[in-house]
């Protein structure tokens, strides 16, 4: 998976799914099972976001070698 596709799927798709909900769907007078459409769509964005991140993980990041770095915590504190 290219870096462009990774960022598009992992960041752009979730943001473009959630942000326009406010000005667009929020103004429609449509209800599903008595709940506003905007609310139902937002709930659908929950598994969608997880799916997007799963695609990034299985399509790219799981194939990279894992990072294991030993930390020196005494160096991290103020002298």
């Amino acid at each position, binding site marked *: 998976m290219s870096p462009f596709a990774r*960022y598009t799927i*992992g*960041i752009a798709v*979730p*943001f473009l799914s*959630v*942000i326009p*909900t*406010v*000005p667009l769907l*929020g*103004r429609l007078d449509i209800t599903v099972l008595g*709940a*506003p459409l*905007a*609310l139902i769509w*937002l*709930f659908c*964005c*929950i*598994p969608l*976001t*997880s799916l*997007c*991140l*799963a695609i*990034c*993980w299985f399509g790219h*990041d*799981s194939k990279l070698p*894992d*990072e*294991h*770095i*030993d*930390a*020196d*915590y*005494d*160096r*991290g*504190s*103020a*002298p």
Partner: protein
Amino acid sequence: MTVAFLAIIALSLVLAVFSKRGHVHQKAEDFFVASGQFNTVLFFFLAVGETYSVATILGYPGGVYASGTGFVTWFLGYILLAFAVGYFLNPLIWRAGRVYGAVTMPDLFRRHFDSRALEVVVTSAVLVFLVPLGMQQFLGLQVVLKTLGWPMSPLFLTCLAGALAFTYILISGIRASAYVAVLKDILLIAAILVTAIVALQHWGVATNAPSAAWKHAMTPTLKGDLFSITTVISQSLGFCVVPQTCAYIFTARSASAVRRAQVTMPLYMLMFPLLTIVAYFALLHPMQVGSANEIFPAVARELLPAPVTGLVMAGAALSALVVLTGICLAIGPLVSRNLVPGLSNDQQRRWSQVVIAFYLLLSIAGAATSSQLLVTINNLFYFGITQSLPGMLSILFARRVRPSSIIAGILAGDLVAITIFELGIPVGGINPGFLGLLVNFAIILIARYVSPGETRVPVSAITRRQSATI
């Protein structure tokens, strides 16, 4: 109800003691970040345990009840998108933590920029905004304990809760928090699921109608839209610089452990549709509540048998206590490690415990004198905390940013956000924290081009081989 509640609290203490197994003599780094040994499962439970506080189980239904679904958009939106942002940024913050031997977020700033002044400014700014968050948890605990109907003063009960949180911390620090978080998360999901299902079963014919004020709050306005959009953007981006977020990122064993947990974290949010059902049930059926924050306990008490209500309340109480221990374990080292220099490893741990005890007392006193809506405190917290974001992005991605410009950015961002909020300056509904963040970014970007600093290797460009030599 009381027996079920106390049984869960006793079980949480057993788990806290169990978490100490094999870690009897803890060094400061083990006490605060578990020496970076948590696998994906423990990291997941700690992360969601710290994310969904009492503001979720009480504040969210309370917000829907008080303000309608306009509130839902930004509350859900920012948490959901924070997981997407975190998938990309958190592994880099984890790498920075390992490379710089960090236990706290300001450790990263001091080591990367080699600036003690920047460390003190970041620490001070973070501490100021963390104070109301502890108060928020105690306000939630007051609501939960009120539901139990014990014949004791609210102040005495919150002091007991504070003592319990302190006990978890004394037992084994972040390890106790993680183990109790497992119990809390299972209980919380079960509590919300049961309450929502029973609410659906008792739905029947709605005998109440939403008030005109509630319907008015549901009507979209440009001001409301701007607030939602700017809040979602600033808080989802700023989520990764919340001190507790950094602390739990540092507990992870590897970068992959962080990423794998981030993939599944949004699914935990499926409890929000259930909480919305509970809020709508309360809205459409007559119910006696003192404040909007009491909606969830009120529905549980109305519909569930007393022992089950006790379990639900225990889940809500643990959600406040786990987050409280997370905040305390973030604050302790901020003082003993970042504000007070030169303390030994053992002194850092002991001084942190003193700071934590003082913080708990301060939060209890704050909760006893305030009754702000839980979500308002949530917003106030993010106004200030998100101002560390430009600095964090500089650590991860930028080469020539001066520490002085980051200091100026944080101070200006905080000043803008708090001035707008406190004076009620009209900005068309835009989130004050978002405006502060814009000013903050502008200062750092202008300074970067007018007077670039010395070249530093950003963490995103550090390879595994280099990390061993830094």
